[in-house]
């Protein structure tokens, strides 16, 4: 009897040690995993998640960015936005930008990709060459194209005047009718390269034996394009179209560099308007509400699109 308690104790001790080491292993594992994850998550949380929450918070207040007090105003900023002609106009310009980008970007780039994919020797050369504009920064593209469009010294108008078409020489970035199309052309030049690469990658998976069969059936190039190329590029087309739309909604740098939203708000989009409202008009909380609206549109579109893609795949 007198010997049993120590034995029991030993057993207990063993168990305790086993439990302890198991728990210790678990803690050690958790620390290891945390050491992999946390630095990244921390940086992400500080500079993305937290500002995201802050953006929503600001939008319910009235704040000029400098004063120490913030007045809660509920949905007032959002209500004001719906009555703000310039904001609504900016939103409309975003939509026009989307439509024009889709028209200029998708089909022409696809045709170009098909042409390049047919080349036997020198495919890499053309791919690299056509991608070149996409390598440039938007500051370079913006400055370059504002000089190209310059009414006095720009090459477009100088050319039109030398061939005697003076009446066609316009102030491209200064006239309401031309400013957005002119900007979208510059933006298309800057961005189509990415979509070209995506189409070329997609075209690699097209089954060319189907083409040969179609050749035997005597199908023409256009009919082959519509009935074979387009359907087999469905996924790529989906990705490209959604990316074009999202890029168009997010555009800022080119517009800011080339027109700052002018003349008379004629090229104002939500991101330029919000930037002005926050940093030169000190309407910080109001501007944040506008940017939240833009953010919600973009996120809703992205999620909706991914959902659609997963369902159809």
């Amino acid at each position: 009897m007198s010997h049993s308690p120590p034995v029991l104790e030993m057993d207990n001790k063993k168990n305790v040690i086993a439990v302890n080491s198991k728990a210790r292993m678990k803690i050690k594992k958790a620390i290891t995993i945390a050491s992999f994850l946390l630095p990244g998550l921390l940086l992400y949380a500080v500079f993305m998640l937290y500002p995201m929450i802050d953006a929503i918070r600001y939008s319910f207040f009235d704040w000029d960015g400098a004063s120490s007090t913030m007045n809660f105003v509920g949905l007032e900023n959002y209500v004001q936005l719906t009555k703000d002609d310039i904001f609504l106009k900016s939103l409309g310009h975003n939509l026009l930008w989307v439509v024009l980008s889709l028209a200029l970007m998708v089909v022409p780039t696809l045709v170009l990709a098909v042409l390049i994919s047919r080349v036997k020797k020198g495919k890499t050369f053309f791919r690299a060459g056509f991608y070149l504009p996409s390598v440039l920064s938007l500051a370079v593209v913006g400055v370059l194209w504002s000089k190209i469009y310059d009414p006095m010294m720009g090459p477009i108008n100088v050319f039109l005047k030398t061939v005697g078409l003076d009446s066609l020489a316009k102030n491209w970035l200064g006239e309401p009718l031309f400013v957005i199309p002119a900007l979208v052309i510059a933006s298309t030049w800057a961005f189509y390269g990415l979509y070209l690469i995506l189409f070329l990658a997609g075209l690699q998976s097209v089954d060319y034996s189907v083409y040969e069969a179609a050749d035997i059936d005597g199908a023409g190039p256009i009919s082959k394009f519509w009935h074979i190329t387009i359907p087999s590029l469905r996924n790529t087309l989906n990705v490209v179209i959604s990316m074009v739309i999202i890029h168009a909604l997010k555009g800022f740098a080119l517009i800011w560099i080339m027109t700052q939203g002018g003349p008379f708000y004629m090229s104002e989009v939500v991101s330029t308007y919000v930037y002005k409202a926050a940093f030169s008009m000190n309407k910080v909380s109001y501007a944040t509400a506008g940017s939240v609206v833009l953010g919600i549109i973009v996120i809703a579109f992205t999620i909706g699109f991914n959902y659609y893609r997963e369902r159809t795949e």
Partner: protein
Amino acid sequence: MVTRLRQLKGSQLTLWITLSVLLLFITSPIVYAILASFKSNMEIFSSPFSLPKSWNFDNYIGAWNLGNFKTYFLNSAFITIGGMVLVALVAAPAGYAFAQLSFKGNNLIFYLVLLGMALPVQAIIIPIFFQLKAMGMVDTLSGVTLVSAGLALPFSIFLMRNTFRDVPKELRESAAMDGAGEWRTYWTIMLPLAKPGLVALLIFTFMNIWNDFLLPLVLLISQEKFTISLGLYSFQGEQTTNFGLIFGGTVISMIPSIIVYLIFQRSFVEGMASGANK
């Protein structure tokens, strides 16, 4: 058979000519800028499409000295290299954890990271400015570096997770049986296998941060902190009518990204295609 071959050759020739003409047209703005950067204002106006009368570098020298492009260069280099190192150091391990280590909430946390990929910078730039202001880091290069790295993370973690998912899990398990710790396995076995993904990540990060405009515009105030994009923008504002000088500055700003592109052209394009298709 012979005629068929000849037809094929003929159509290849037409294709080549068509594409070459198109390529000339598409790259003409770049060629125009390079030619104009060697011309005086007068010459740009009188003969915009011809070769310059002489190849003088006055505009480059003028832009470099007048426009502080040297300072802008160094600032951009600081922010870009800092951002690349930071992104590689934190995004690759995080991507590795999501792909290879099992833990509770893996998917949930990953979706939270994906949310950042959908979120446009424009939606949070105002709070970012005020947050950085509260941290006393507005108008500092390290502030821009931190924010740039933070905003690059969702895509970077996503890319590295996809890269590490293609590495077989057995490799990690057998290393663990040999008694190697998780970090040792990561550095010596897993990371070398993920090299193509890592290279793609570094090129992406370089291009994004080097070419960025919005963050420097909002977060930097004094001219001597400007990056090359912001510097070029302010330079064109100062020299509104001096086309020669502006084109000098524009071409200077083009050179680094074009050089990086030419060196890494292949991995660049392939990384782009695989990154967006996944």
